[in-house]
């Protein structure tokens, strides 16, 4: 006698991954209740370092502004901390190079500078917060000027989010001497990727929005540099004439 043929029921589909990886699914930091704050923070920072395009694609486009702002304040503070540490280290080593009589006079200045740096470290979170909003307002205005926010549903929030997550670039400040420059260039790249992803705009418009304010500053610096060169040239010419 044959046993009745029972076909085993198909296995249930595997459950979806907890954090998801799709567009706007949320970064680990945005779901830190599930992952734990510290691991979620580190995981998110790693994502932005290794694959910023994928990270910005995963970032939420609306709601929960606390997450990107807190992320920016913590990373910005780490950047300020390292910049201040390098300044203090460099300041003391430069003072050591001076002759003893000059060391005494600059020693007072250095002590004042040290106090200033400590105040800077303590107040940094407030300044980072203010700077984040000012920079976001300027960049968003520039994005509107170049027409990059036309098809966006993220609005100002999207720009704020892009700039906030781009503060991961402040980790460049860990490098002594060139850290500030590394962080600045890295921030430009991250902000461009962030704006292009969160506002669904072209990289051209995103880079224009990021670089336009810098360009205005550069025009001024170019003007200042030109005047300096003219002054030096004038001094050299008058020296040669005498």
């Amino acid at each position, binding site marked *: 006698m044959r046993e009745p043929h029972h076909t085993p029921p198909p296995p249930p589909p595997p459950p979806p991954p907890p954090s998801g990886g799709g567009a706007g699914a949320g970064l680990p930091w945005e779901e830190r209740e599930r992952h734990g704050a510290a691991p979620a923070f580190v995981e998110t920072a790693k994502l932005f370092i290794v694959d910023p395009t994928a990270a910005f694609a995963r970032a939420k486009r609306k709601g929960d502004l606390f997450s990107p702002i807190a992320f920016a304040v913590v990373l910005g503070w780490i950047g300020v901390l390292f910049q201040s540490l390098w300044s203090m280290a460099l300041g003391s080593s430069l003072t050591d190079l001076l002759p003893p009589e000059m060391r005494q006079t600059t020693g007072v200045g250095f002590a004042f500078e040290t106090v200033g740096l400590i105040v800077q470290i303590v107040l940094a979170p407030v300044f980072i917060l*203010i700077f984040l909003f000012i920079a976001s307002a300027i960049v968003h205005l520039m994005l*509107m*000027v170049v027409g990059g*926010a*036309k098809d966006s549903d993220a609005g100002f929030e999207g720009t704020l989010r892009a700039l906030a997550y781009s503060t991961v670039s402040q980790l460049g400040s860990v490098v002594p001497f060139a850290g500030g420059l590394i962080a600045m260039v890295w921030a430009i790249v991250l902000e461009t990727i962030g704006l292009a992803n969160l506002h669904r705009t072209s990289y051209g418009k995103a880079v224009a929005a990021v670089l336009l304010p810098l360009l205005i500053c550069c025009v*001024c610096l170019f003007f200042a540099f030109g005047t300096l060169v003219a002054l030096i040239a004038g001094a050299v010419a008058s020296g040669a004439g005498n």
Partner: protein
Amino acid sequence: MALLALAPLGAGLARALPACPVKRLTGWPCPGCGTTRAALAWAELDPAAAFAANPLAAAGWALLVAGGLVAGLAACGRHLPGEPRTLPVAGRWALGVALVANWAYLVWAGR
């Protein structure tokens, strides 16, 4: 809110800020010269002095604080008007003219 919280410390903190390198090198103000003074004047609730220091920056600071208040209202769940997505051509020109006019004023006033 952070700006308002820092307002009483403004004068002390401003002394630690470096002078504008453009102004120091050329003697001419950059478009941002007077921004700190405008913020300090706002902190002392002196709009006339704020606008005299840098009109565009004074307006910018006022808009920033107003924006913060609007964001606060949004957080409270009040209905807010929609955000503009683009700047009309006239707005772009106005922005450019405002930047240049502001700079011209700073040069003229010797800020």
